[in-house]
């Protein structure tokens, strides 16, 4: 299909269906913008649940085996059996019931104290939700959907119905995952990595349907992202507006394009592995169980063969968002646009050959470990290029400290820490010591949880386009600064814990005498984490308030160049008044050709033609 024909075709179709009804507009919508918003809301909802789980994990680590505040029983009651508070009364009543009538709380946290099985479930579900149901839906599902057609000048995705299905299948997988919290035996409790053989047999964890549903949910999620990624790739290849060559696409669109390709190739590997695991659990096969001739580290190879590209699936769109806001608010072209594209492409290729760095001490032949160390060192290079190019973009700019800019800068500085801490783990001998310690937890939160900053940057930057209103800048800035401070107070000290030898995934650090001196750090981290959680209320308030009462946004409130800003805010069904023609790259800020400091991609300059004629 030629570009112009595709654009024209969708144009006509959409004119014909100008006013779909309520259900078609808000629920079973095939409009990429509504689907994007749906993914965004789903992700934000899951962020709240995943975040609350993190708070419970942190409570347990700072105050091991102590009942939670408010819902927990008092110390007197636990010591003496004499109910003191009204909550004590409730616990006494609940616990006196027969086994069959016990509720979820008495089974999982008697007296309001987190138990070891619950703890294992909490970190498993926290991570699963954050990765598969927060970052992926928001970045790829939400902003991917919303931005791809808008930034390339298309009226919708190539396959709008498939797109709608992708959301509903994604939602179904989220519901299955949440449902697994309530099945007998509890939810999955073997970490988000679900290492076999621990997961391959029910007896090993005591979790039955929880783990099965975990697998099923992720298989369903794989179907959803498959539909999404096919759609994104097709749309970007076929439906770019006239003049929108690949090298005139904004970096966010590039990042989503590369992410979609990684998704298309990586997710099926996870799906196969999950199917094998389910067979081991339910049909008696022995893919991962050595007693039947299975291979105990096969799961790890499959999981990380998916898992490492997955990390880049999460982080590439975040890099894309950062590039947009840094350029717009420095009022400067992005430094080394092509270098940025090549760096992302290099990351995409290299991400397939580094998975073994998760397995240096797994029992895999150490000789292969040496190879993986080399590839891992090499993949750090394109990440360094990106960072330096961001710095280059700031250099000589005219920097506006808006809320999205603050979040973009925060993402860069966290990414620097996360990238540098990764070099320690790439060095195999050092990894012997820090593998599976809190050092790892610190590292990946700087990278993956750091994506939250890019998510906030994206939400605050595109909010006017998505919802037609501005968010409050003062609240936004307060939220950005406090989040940055508490994020670092929470995650930086985890490096120190890890260097001190503190293992990850342990329920009670006080069981280890050599960790006692580190316990004050755990308390400090937890208090910072609670503050980090609390300041998110500012965002929640700002988001909801602005949805209804924010100042109306005009088309281009940030004076940005990319095509989405030429549409009304929010864009109507069909997006563009008229399909734009693109004359230049996306980052022509402060160009000497015009008096203003921005130059939209679709503005035709008479002077250029005139100059050409002379």
């Amino acid at each position, binding site marked *: 299909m030629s570009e112009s024909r595709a654009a024209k075709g969708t144009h006509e179709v959409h004119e014909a269906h100008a006013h779909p009804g309520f259900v078609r507009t808000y629920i079973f919508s095939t409009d990429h913008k509504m689907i994007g918003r749906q993914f965004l809301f789903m992700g934000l909802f899951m962020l709240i649940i995943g975040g609350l789980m993190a708070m419970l994990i942190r409570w347990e680590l700072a105050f091991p085996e102590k009942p939670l505040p408010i819902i927990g029983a008092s110390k007197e009651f636990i010591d003496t059996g004499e109910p003191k508070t009204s909550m004590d009364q409730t616990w006494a009543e609940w616990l006196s019931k027969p086994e069959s009538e016990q509720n979820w709380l008495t089974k999982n946290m008697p007296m309001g104290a987190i138990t070891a099985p619950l703890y294992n479930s909490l970190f498993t579900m926290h991570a699963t939700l954050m990765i598969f149901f927060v970052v992926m839906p928001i970045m790829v599902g939400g902003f991917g959907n919303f931005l791809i057609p808008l930034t390339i000048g298309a009226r919708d995705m190539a396959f709008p119905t498939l797109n709608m299905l992708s959301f509903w299948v994604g939602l179904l997988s989220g519901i299955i995952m949440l449902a697994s919290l309530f099945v007998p035996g509890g939810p999955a409790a073997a970490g988000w990595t679900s290492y076999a053989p621990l997961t391959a047999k029910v007896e090993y964890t005591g979790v039955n349907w929880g783990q099965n549903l975990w697998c099923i949910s992720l298989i369903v999620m794989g179907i959803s992202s498959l539909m999404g990624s096919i759609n994104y790739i097709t749309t970007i290849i076929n439906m770019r507006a006239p003049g929108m060559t690949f090298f005139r696409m904004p970096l966010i669109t590039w990042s989503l394009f590369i992410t979609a390709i990684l998704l298309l190739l990586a997710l099926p590997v996870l799906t196969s592995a999950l199917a094998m695991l389910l067979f081991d659990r339910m049909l008696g096969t022995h893919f991962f169980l050595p007693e039947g001739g299975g291979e105990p580290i096969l799961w790890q190879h499959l999981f990380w063969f998916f898992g490492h590209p997955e990390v880049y699936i999460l982080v590439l769109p975040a890099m894309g968002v950062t590039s947009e806001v840094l350029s717009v608010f420095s009022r400067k072209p992005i430094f080394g646009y092509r270098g940025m594209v090549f760096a992302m492409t290099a990351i995409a290729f290299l991400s397939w050959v580094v998975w073994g760095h998760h397995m240096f001490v797994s029992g895999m032949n150490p000789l292969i470990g040496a190879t993986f160390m080399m590839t891992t060192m090499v993949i750090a290079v394109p990440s360094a290029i990106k960072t330096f190019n961001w710095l280059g973009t700031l250099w000589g700019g*005219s920097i506006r400290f808006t809320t999205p800019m603050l979040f973009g800068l925060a993402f860069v500085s966290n990414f620097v820490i996360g990238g540098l801490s990764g070099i320690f783990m790439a060095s195999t001998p050092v990894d012997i010591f820090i593998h599976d310690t809190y050092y790892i937890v610190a590292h990946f939160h700087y990278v993956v949880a750091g994506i939250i900053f890019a998510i906030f940057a994206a939400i605050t930057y595109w909010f006017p386009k998505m919802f037609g209103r501005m968010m409050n800048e003062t609240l936004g800035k307060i939220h950005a600064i406090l989040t940055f401070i508490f994020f670092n107070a929470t995650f930086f000290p985890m490096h120190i814990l890890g260097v001190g030898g503190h293992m990850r995934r342990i329920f009670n650090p006080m069981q280890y005498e050599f960790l006692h001196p580190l316990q004050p750090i755990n308390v400090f981290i937890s208090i910072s984490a609670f503050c980090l959680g609390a300041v998110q209320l500012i965002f929640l308030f700002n988001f909801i308030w602005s949805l209804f009462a924010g100042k109306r946004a005009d088309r281009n409130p940030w004076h940005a160049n990319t095509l989405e800003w030429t549409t009304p805010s929010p864009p109507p069904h069909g997006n563009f008044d008229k399909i734009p023609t693109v004359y230049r790259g996306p980052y022509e800020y402060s160009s000497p050709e015009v008096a203003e400091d921005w130059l939209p991609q679709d503005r035709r300059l008479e002077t250029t033609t005139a100059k050409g004629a002379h």
Partner: protein
Amino acid sequence: MRMLNWLPEDVSTYGKEVDSLFYLIYYITGIVFLLVTVAMIVFLIKYRYQEGRRAIYTHGSTTLEIIWTAIPAIILILLAFKSQAAWSHIKMNIPPGEVQIRVLAKQFNWDITYPGPDGKFGTEDDLPRPGDPAILDEIHVPVNKVVRVELVGKDVIHSFFLPHLRLKQDVLPGRTILAWFQATKPGRYPLPCAELCGIGHSGMLGSLIVHTPEEYAAWVKEKWPSTEKAQ
């Protein structure tokens, strides 16, 4: 300057190799971090929006980009080569060992077997003797001797972690994996499990007891009274 006082005391011969690499990377990344952060802060202050000043219009510089691609690439590759020496020493060339032990990891204990004076497993002088209770969670070794550990797995994956000896090795069910260490200082050191292995993972903890030569001889004598010369 060293956040490194946080590392647990190092009591193994190859610990220094691990720690020196750690310090090396710490200084390299520390410098890069400072440079990047300072540059960023300076740019943010110097190039903040000011009335009447326009941003510099540039699309980048290929020379600069080549420089900042090449320098990290060279540093990282050198680092990989430097790391490889320690890695092959620790993990790839397992020495024969002057003392042997076998550790069976299972939910949620370390089950220890000693080969006895003949140094061979599966013979009569193994400890525990047939019918004796298992020896759980305590490993006795002499100081300054190369100890070779056979790691055997039973149910799920566990990870044999001796933080003070800078040794970590996952234990796989149905396989025997070899590891080694040489302790340089007598004492009692924790042996936690570092890989999530189920409900009892937290608290799956043993100890490594490193004896002085005299203590060790006494311990051997106590366990194998009939033999004069233990190893």
